[in-house]
């Protein structure tokens, strides 16, 4: 690449950075004040692209385009305010993970709303009136609209900075970021403050989206892509730091632009197309930054956020009732093949549920007792599934060996990623695990020659007798039962206690000689190993796998399962996984708008059962018991 070409890519990167910054700044502001990681932020950005498209095409001209962009920002701001008032306001006191769940439900609902309103096709907006041409720079032609975008980013940064530093509204935001209750006790109406911050953040996302329509088409996949980008930018820049968000946006955008600019390079022994590694590069930058500066480039260590979640009860060994109940359920499942003779679908559903149970229980192991909220558990599932499938495909490994190798591969991944992840905590840990999962996903997706790319691997069927559904079901049942009971045993052993000790009070745990990071790292590895069993089983159950296996959606599904059941109970993930898998396999398949339906179900559950299903029953049980 020549110097001129390099500088040209730098300019390209700067114009992309503005869009990244707008969405990340809003996310950061909202998180700062409300302590909610708004997973629907990418959806607000996506709404911005669609709404601005409608203005630009339906009204048209200068008014439709430029007026439309302003109007879009305002409309998305109002939508944000409505979300805050109607939904979030009810769950500020709920545990952090429930808030995540609620905002993820919004992602699903908004996506289907956009599908319903605008249809599935990509929609490309008109070129920007007044900026249709291109300017010759460094011997190349740069669209003048890109120059306009380059200027917008710093302008918004300056405006936000002045607002935060110089105005009372800005001071209130900074104070509320730290202690919102105290701000209220000093006479400030928090409800108004929260709503306005949410509206401001949403408007910024809407503006960011609206500005993109002249460059990229509106697309239904934008929401999660934009969300992923925004996460990376916010975390690299430092949660709550607006200048950090701009700096990070520039770095990320530049790295991506340079990857594209470098293109295909022949190293002699191997040819690498760098333009295909933009996603990997982005998340690698994030991983490197988080390891060097755990709180981001310009971020500060988060002070202890006042926890308002319900404290956890001590764990107790299973009661006789629970043991009997467990034995009965197991016996009934063993008999399922007999019942299912007339309907093979029942066994398929049964296998799905059991695999979901392995997935959710292993996630709960680190999430509940370990306090590590992994947003990338699908990585270990995917490593197991792809590991098994690829070993069969390329090395011709037998079924049994592949099933054993699958969890070992997942273990390897978990040991590697976990080593970094346990150095962080809270939201940062969540984002880093997400980043690692995205790296695995991107590698699988982009390494077509080996993994089959988006087509995946097909024809991975188990040999007889496991090709019969009922035999495979029994195999899955045995492995699931072993996995669940083993993890439970670990939790009651000294190791499980040490994991909880490190979660409850890291300071105290270190002060009695416990190496908290090491304990959590091993916990992470065990969870990865068990999750890999599920992944291996999954590959052979379906006969084929695709990158969907590792997609962020699966990681979120796992969170939903654990939270549905209740993160503070040991049986919760089993119930949650069962309910979720059954819902997904039955109700969801009935409608094109399954996402919205799923979202609605999550919202109802979050608002009705803030402690999860099992948690709610346990609370009810205690209440009834207390009265008698």
């Amino acid at each position, binding site marked *: 690449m020549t110097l001129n070409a390099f500088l040209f890519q730098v300019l390209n990167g700067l114009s992309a950075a503005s869009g990244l910054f707008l969405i990340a700044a809003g996310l950061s502001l909202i998180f700062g004040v409300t302590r909610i990681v708004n997973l629907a932020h990418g959806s607000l950005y996506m709404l911005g692209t669609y709404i601005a498209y409608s203005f630009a095409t339906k009204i048209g001209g200068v008014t439709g385009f430029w007026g439309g962009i302003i109007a879009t920002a305002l409309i998305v701001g109002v939508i944000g305010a409505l979300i805050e008032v109607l939904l979030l306001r009810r769950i500020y006191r709920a545990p952090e993970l429930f808030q995540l769940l609620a905002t993820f439900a919004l992602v699903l609902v908004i996506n289907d709303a956009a599908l319903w309103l605008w249809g599935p096709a990509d929609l490309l907006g008109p070129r920007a009136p007044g900026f249709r041409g291109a300017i010759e720079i460094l011997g190349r032609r740069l669209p003048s609209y890109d120059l306009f975008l380059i200027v917008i980013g710093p302008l918004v940064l300056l405006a936000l900075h002045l607002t935060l530093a110089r105005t*009372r509204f800005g*001071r*209130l935001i*900074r*104070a509320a*970021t*730290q*202690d919102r*209750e*105290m*701000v*209220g*006790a*000093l*006479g*400030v*109406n*928090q409800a108004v403050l929260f709503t306005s911050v949410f509206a401001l953040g949403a408007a910024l996302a809407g503006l960011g989206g609206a500005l993109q329509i002249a460059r990229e088409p509106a697309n239904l996949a934008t929401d999660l892509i934009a969300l992923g980008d925004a996460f990376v930018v916010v975390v690299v820049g430092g949660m709550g730091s607006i200048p950090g968000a701009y700096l990070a946006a520039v770095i990320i955008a530049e790295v991506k632009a340079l990857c594209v600019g470098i293109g295909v390079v022949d190293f002699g022994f191997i040819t690498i197309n760098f333009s295909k590694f933009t996603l990997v590069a982005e998340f690698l930058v994030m991983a490197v930054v988080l390891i060097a500066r755990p709180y981001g480039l310009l971020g*500060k260590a988060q*002070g202890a956020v006042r926890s308002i979640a*319900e404290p956890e009860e001590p764990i107790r060994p299973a009661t006789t009732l629970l043991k009997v109940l467990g034995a009965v359920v197991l016996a009934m499942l063993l008999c399922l093949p007999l019942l299912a003779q007339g309907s093979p679908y029942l066994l398929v559903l049964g296998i799905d549920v059991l695999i979901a149970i392995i997935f959710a229980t292993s996630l709960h192991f680190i999430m509940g007792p370990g306090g590590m909220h992994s947003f990338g558990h699908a990585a270990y599932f995917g490593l197991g599934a792809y590991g098994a499938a690829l070993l069969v495909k390329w090395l011709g490994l037998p079924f049994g060996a592949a099933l054993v190798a699958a969890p070992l591969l997942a273990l390897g991944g978990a040991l590697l990623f976990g080593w970094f992840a346990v150095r962080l905590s809270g939201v940062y840990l969540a984002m880093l695990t997400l980043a690692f999962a995205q790296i695995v996903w991107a590698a699988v997706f982009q390494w077509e020659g080996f993994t089959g790319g988006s087509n995946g691997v097909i024809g991975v069927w188990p040999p007889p007798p496991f090709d019969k559904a009922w035999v495979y079901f029994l195999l899955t049942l045995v492995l699931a039962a072993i996995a669940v009971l083993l993890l439970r045993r670990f939790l009651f052993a000294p190791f499980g206690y040490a994991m909880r000790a490190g979660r409850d009070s890291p300071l105290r745990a270190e002060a009695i000689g416990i190496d908290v990071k090491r304990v959590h790292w091993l916990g992470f590895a065990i969870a990865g190993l068990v999750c890999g069993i599920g992944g291996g089983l999954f590959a052979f159950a379906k006969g084929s796998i695709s990158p969907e296996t590792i997609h962020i959606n699966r990681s979120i599904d796992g969170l939903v399962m654990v939270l549905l059941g209740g993160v503070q109970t040991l049986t919760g993930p089993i119930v949650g996984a069962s309910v979720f898998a059954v819902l997904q396999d039955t109700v969801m398949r009935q409608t094109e708008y399954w996402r919205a339906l799923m979202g609605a179900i999550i919202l109802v559950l979050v608002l009705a059962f803030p402690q999860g299903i099992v948690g709610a029953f346990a609370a009810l049980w205690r209440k009834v018991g207390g009265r008698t």
Partner: protein
Amino acid sequence: MLSVENLSAWYGAARILYELTFEVGRGEVVALMGRNGAGKSTTMKAIMGLIGQRQGTVTFSGEDISRLEPYQIARRGLGFTPEDRRIFSDLTVMENLDIGRQPPREFPDGAAAPSWTPERLFALFPNLAEMPHRAGGRMSGGEQQMLTVARTLMGNPLLVLLDEPSEGVAPLIVEQMANTIIELKKEGLSILLSEQNIHFAQLVSDRVYVLEKGQIQWQGTMAQLSGSPEIQRTYLTV
């Protein structure tokens, strides 16, 4: 000024306060004393509306405030300084003061309440005047304790709920706090003070309520309490 009737409060299933009834007159400094866990801080938070589960009536300046939000209560002239200070550590001293700022206020009879500006507060707390642009997080515990009181005064309150101002600070600072309270009383402010340090309470308070296990066990004037080692032994076991 402030009258509390049958105030009860719960944390989850645990009941902390049992039908407390007491009052604070205008210009009076009243001490809530008692052991740790007796319910002093909970009483203050319950008055301020910071506890979800509460019952009873709280009347302030003749108005029932028991159903109001914390910010509405603060806007009626009730100031609160929490025991753990809760300074905004990223904000400077001046910015912390600004967060607490509210318009001037009048007593129910129309008399003007003491009105505070950063300049007046710096005169009251000379230590703060030396560091108007220092971030709250970089101040010592004693300086933070002063800032939290000053921040509350910026709201021009009629009555201040002062939760354990002597806790965890050096004796020299405790003494300055005592002098401050006496100054504020002279200005006409009412103060409800929660305190465990009898020596401190003796210096500043007019009347005392002794709390134990969420109930008022003894009430009387400070003079009565000071004069009776027996009462002190029974309820405070100094």
